[in-house]
């Protein structure tokens, strides 16, 4: 329980205190108050460093004082023999006596009262970022004009968030630029362009002055860009340390400028503009593109034609070309389509002969038909060599698509007729 005041008396006071006794008083006054403790009577056995009997005053971990002996007031108009001021709202008083007292000691009488503390000045740490206002039992912080008090009720910042830029080009600066930017602030900006345009930011080196980082590069104040999952920064220092041109690859760019409570600088100024979203120049292999450009941007359409012997297969339909359009997200439409080599499939079987047993039946592959020799021979012209052609068929230089014919070797006896000699 807290109390605004109280009395503390040694055991048996004003009679002699007993031997071998220890008594502890925990004093607590309301928050926002300190404790004034004063003794009006003190008669305790005197010893070196008050080793025998003593009364100790402890504030937190700190021993404010250890008393023993007899004390009298130095001021004839005041009964107070010893006084303590503690800027905290709790205090502990401990009385101890040892096993023997050769004389009669009456102990002590003390009183405590709650006294107001000035939080704005009594402590080494300043409780408010800007203005501190003390009142009895507490304090409050306040801010200069255009600043607002943060939720922690201690720090002031400026209101610099929620800025949206939708023009295709523009300029953004830190608050007060080129005057000092505000401390303890977090400023959010968003550049939001129409789809198909990426945000490009340019910052001149001399247009950037933000409190420099420590030796490990941690920025106390920082400028950070994020777009499309990419992050640029955080940046700080005198002179912009990043690339002079930042391509966001997205139509939305978020900018965060964060400052701490110290080290204000000039700030920064940047320009931005919307650049039509580029699409990569890479296309499916084994194809040619029309038109050929150094750079393809949003809404550009390209006809992609597969090289001879290659085709695009969509479901059950194949084609030799397709169209692709640069989309607002910087990706080509139909980018899933690929020019793949034409597959002629397994060569057709022929009677009394066969084709090479091959797994590769793609464009350009050469296979050889042979007849079941020696009893069959290839009647048709050509060597029996067929190449997988661009139209997906096996082609022979002489016969074209026609398959070779294997016919029986005729009229050849395996043995001469012996009885024919005359």
């Amino acid at each position, binding site marked *: 329980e807290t109390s605004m005041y109280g009395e503390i008396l040694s055991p048996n006071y004003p009679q002699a205190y007993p031997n071998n006794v220890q008594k502890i008083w925990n004093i607590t006054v309301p928050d926002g108050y300190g404790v004034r403790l004063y003794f009006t009577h003190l008669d305790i056995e005197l010893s070196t460093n008050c080793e025998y009997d003593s009364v100790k005053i402890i504030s937190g971990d700190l021993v404010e004082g250890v008393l023993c002996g007899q004390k009298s007031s130095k001021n004839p108009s005041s009964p107070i023999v010893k006084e303590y001021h503690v800027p905290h709202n709790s205090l502990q008083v401990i009385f101890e006596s040892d096993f023997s007292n050769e004389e009669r000691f009456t102990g002590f009488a003390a009183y405590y009262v709650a006294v107001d503390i000035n939080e704005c000045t009594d402590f080494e740490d300043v409780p408010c970022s800007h203005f501190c206002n003390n009142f009895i039992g507490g304090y409050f912080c306040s801010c200069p004009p255009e600043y607002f008090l943060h939720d922690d009720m201690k720090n002031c910042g400026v209101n610099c968030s929620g800025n949206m830029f939708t023009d295709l080009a523009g300029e953004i600066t830190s608050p007060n630029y080129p005057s000092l930017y505000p401390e303890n602030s977090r400023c959010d900006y968003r550049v939001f362009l129409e789809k198909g345009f990426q945000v490009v930011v340019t910052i001149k080196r001399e247009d950037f002055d933000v409190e420099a980082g420590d030796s490990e590069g941690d920025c106390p104040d920082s400028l950070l860009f994020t777009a499309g999952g990419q992050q640029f920064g955080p940046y700080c220092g005198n002179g912009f340390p990043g690339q002079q041109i930042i391509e966001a690859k997205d139509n939305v760019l978020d900018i965060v400028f964060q400052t701490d409570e110290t080290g204000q600088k000039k700030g920064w100024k940047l320009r931005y503009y919307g650049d039509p979203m580029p699409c990569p120049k890479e296309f499916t292999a084994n194809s040619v593109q029309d038109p050929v450009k150094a750079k393809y941007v949003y809404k550009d359409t390209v006809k992609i034609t597969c090289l001879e012997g290659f085709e695009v297969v969509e479901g059950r339909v194949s084609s030799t070309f397709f169209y692709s359009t640069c989309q607002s997200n910087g990706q080509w439409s139909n980018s899933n389509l690929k020019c793949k080599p034409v597959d002629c499939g397994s060569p057709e079987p022929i*009677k*009394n002969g066969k084709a090479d047993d091959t797994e590769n039946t793609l464009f350009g592959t050469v296979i050889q038909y042979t007849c079941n020799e020696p*009893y*069959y021979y290839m009647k048709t012209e050509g060597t029996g060599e067929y190449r997988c052609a661009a139209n997906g068929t096996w082609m022979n230089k002489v016969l074209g698509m026609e398959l070779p014919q294997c*016919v*029986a*070797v*005729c*009229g*050849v*006896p*395996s*043995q*001469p*007729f*012996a*009885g*024919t000699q*005359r």
Partner: protein
Amino acid sequence: IFGGIKANIGSFPWQVFFQTPRAGGALIDDHWVLTAAHVVEGNSNPIMYMGTTRVHNADLEKAQMLIADGVFLHPDWKPVGDLETRKNFDNDIALVRLKDPVKLGPNVSPICLPDSSSDYDLEFGTLGLISGWGRIERRRIVVELRGTKLPVVPMKKCESVESDSRIDTRTFSFTDNMICAGGEKGSDSCEGDSGGAFAVQVPNEKKTKFYVAGLVSWGPKCGTYGIYTKVKNYISWIEKTMQEHRISDQD
């Protein structure tokens, strides 16, 4: 075969054995057998064998049996009820289509066909080979294949063969669709050899290669001269018939 000797099957790999009636044929393709019309007249399912010189039943079991699925007589062949009384063997040619292809090998392979060019016009004296399991001088039939060689001769040689008691040669038809051959030391074909090939060496060919110039058809008297169907005259019909009745791959 008169005036012949036993033959190895490898010497006549195109020789086809017709069991009933006992006769011969010539393999011209792995699906086709060429024979005489009178061999297959009235017999749409002849049983044939290849790849053997011996034609005992036990031997035939080891041979390759050929199953016919079509018999095509020449359209100008005039059927008669009784073969014994037949005197007109004009257009004595027929094709037998096989159900399954013949498996070719050293002892089974086709004989070539002539084409219609003059290269295949037979000159008198041109030698041809014949083979078969038919009558020989002292036996009605033989078990082992026999063969002989004989020349082409003018048709009047055949026409002038003296008739015996059974046959009056003068009553028979002699046409340009026939070849007359024989007369050399009695080399001749005889009953049971019908349909077999009269094989002549392909002209202008370095390698020894034979084509079917004739088919054993008939004769006035075994051991003299014999009449053979002139195959060259039927090339168009053969090709047309084979083309029209070709067994497709799906079959």
